[in-house]
């Protein structure tokens, strides 16, 4: 993909897209085709997102299963056809939408803050992995499964040493197969669920042949390499020991087992990476004076995977273009997503954990729940005991859960679930009560921000009176 480095940058594009994964790329393609002025902001140096993370120069891309490989080829071909009409800003991060309707982007390449005033702001920030807390999950050598996978996609290399994969879901199988192909089979895959013992859910997946063939190819690779896939495994803890990590779990019969490894990769599902993002416009959408129309697409709207991100991105991109050009209503691409939603539902059922999932009783009190602020299960229990009826907001403001640098991306859902369990509440504690909307989303230098806002385009500026900054 050629890098686009325009010497001037239009701060008032029709459409500003945050995130260069499959959803963001698909919206960009459709809006560019319709003739709109499109700017795409990507935090990394290249497009593709996590799922289609590109290797560094000179490294062969890691092979994907046939379905994703076709999707990737089509996406990049379509993008290449429109690339001259899409401004890509790489190495830049979205800091938030300010009260005045400016979309603030931090350009780390130039250490500047870019104040965009687009007509529409499309958020395509993808997914984050859910990782359940266990003793030792914060240790060096422990990553998310997706984290290890994108590193392998980027470098073409597997990590040095012994690897154990643990948690739940098909991503563990995909990663195991990729490790095997790079010559470093994992010691074991510890799976909390047991899809083979849930034939109903597994059979329902037959309606999605591309997913079935993808799963079959991973399972065949894993079986050939004789990598044990321990189903019904209740993952207990990781202990550091002489430069190694001792992984302990209970097998499906309840017996304790352990392995020594150098790397442990955890994964318990995917969730939308929508933390602190500005709210999406709803219903018959019109942007209020000066404020852009806000739309979410792909996994940050609903974590349904790459095929859904492309389908939803394309449909949303076409709707958005029609709205901006002729004033039609923007309709979320619900119909295109129903099939993907049903597939994800069956996958979740097939991989549902076999054992009781009361976290609060499974975990020792010193388990870290919120890494950024070092808050443990004991801290959470103490808060709940001291103030019965503790709200999620109090848990955050008084207890500092989900308060730290990751903004609750990795602890808010676990903290909300534990709060529900400990207060014996029948209602689920909403994760959003712990995260909420924030501005800025990331730390931004005050000086750079002040300079940018002084330069910012005023409401009503259009792409015709280009305000260029150099």
């Amino acid at each position, binding site marked *: 993909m050629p890098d686009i480095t325009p010497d001037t940058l239009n701060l008032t594009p029709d459409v500003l897209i945050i995130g260069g994964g499959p959803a963001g790329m698909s919206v960009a393609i459709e809006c560019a085709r319709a003739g709109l002025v499109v700017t795409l902001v990507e935090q990394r140096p290249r497009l593709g997102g996590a799922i289609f993370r590109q290797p560094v120069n000179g490294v062969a891309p890691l092979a994907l299963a046939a379905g994703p490989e076709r999707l990737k080829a089509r996406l990049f071909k379509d993008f290449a056809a429109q690339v001259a009409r899409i401004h890509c800003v790489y190495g830049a991060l979205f800091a938030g939408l300010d009260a005045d309707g400016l979309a603030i982007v931090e350009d780390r390449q130039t250490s500047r803050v870019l104040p965009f005033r687009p007509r529409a702001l499309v958020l395509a920030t993808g997914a984050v992995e859910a990782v359940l807390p266990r003793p030792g999950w914060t240790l060096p050598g422990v990553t998310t499964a997706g*984290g290890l996978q994108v590193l392998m996609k980027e470098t073409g290399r597997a990590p040095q040493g012994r690897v154990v994969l643990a948690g739940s879901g098909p991503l563990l199988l995909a990663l195991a197969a990729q490790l095997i192909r790079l010559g470093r089979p994992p010691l074991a895959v510890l799976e909390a669920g047991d899809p083979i013992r849930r034939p109903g859910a597994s059979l329902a997946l037959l309606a999605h042949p591309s997913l079935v063939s993808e799963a079959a190819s991973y399972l065949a690779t894993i079986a050939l390499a004789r990598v044990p896939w321990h189903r019904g495994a209740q993952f207990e803890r990781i202990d550091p020991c002489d430069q190694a990590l001792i992984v302990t779990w209970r097998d499906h019969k309840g017996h304790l087992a352990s392995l020594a490894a150098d790397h442990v990769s955890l994964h318990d599902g995917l969730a939308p990476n929508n933390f602190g993002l500005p709210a999406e416009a709803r219903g018959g959408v019109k942007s209020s004076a000066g404020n852009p129309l806000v739309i979410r697409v792909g996994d940050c709207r609903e974590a349904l995977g790459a095929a859904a991100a492309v389908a939803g991105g394309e449909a949303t991109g076409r709707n958005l273009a029609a709205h901006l050009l002729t004033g039609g209503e923007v309709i979320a691409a619900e119909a295109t997503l129903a099939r993907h939603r049903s597939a994800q539902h069956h996958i979740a059922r097939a991989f549902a954990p076999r054992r009781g999932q009361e976290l609060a009783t499974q975990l020792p009190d010193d388990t870290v729940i919120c890494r950024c602020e*070092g808050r443990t299960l004991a801290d959470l229990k103490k808060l709940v005991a001291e103030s019965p009826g503790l709200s999620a907001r109090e848990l955050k403001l008084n207890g500092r859960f989900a308060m730290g640098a990751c903004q609750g991306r990795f602890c808010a859902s676990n903290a909300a679930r534990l709060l529900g369990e400990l207060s014996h509440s029948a209602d689920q504690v909403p994760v959003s009560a712990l995260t909420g909307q924030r501005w800025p989303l990331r730390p931004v230098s005050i000086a750079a921000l002040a300079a940018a806002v002084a330069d910012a385009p005023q409401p009503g500026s259009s792409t015709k009176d280009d305000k260029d900054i150099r």
Partner: protein
Amino acid sequence: MTPATFRWMSQDVPFRPGETIAAALSAAGVVSYGRDQAGAPSRYFCGVGACQCCLVNVDGRPIEACLTLARPGLSVTPLELDHA
């Protein structure tokens, strides 16, 4: 040709053009990034700029190792030097 390197503690870490600091550290076998200001161990974790576990100081500024391209001669240090 010798590969370009950046400085991590007392080590020269080689990298390929286009590689992030995290990718180069992983290839060099560096798993621990020291500790952060709260005392938690820093390390590569999510790989997508979300978890803030891989923050390191680059030219005196805390930044995600998984998002930041390695550059020749860069000085990369743990957030808290005392705990490294």
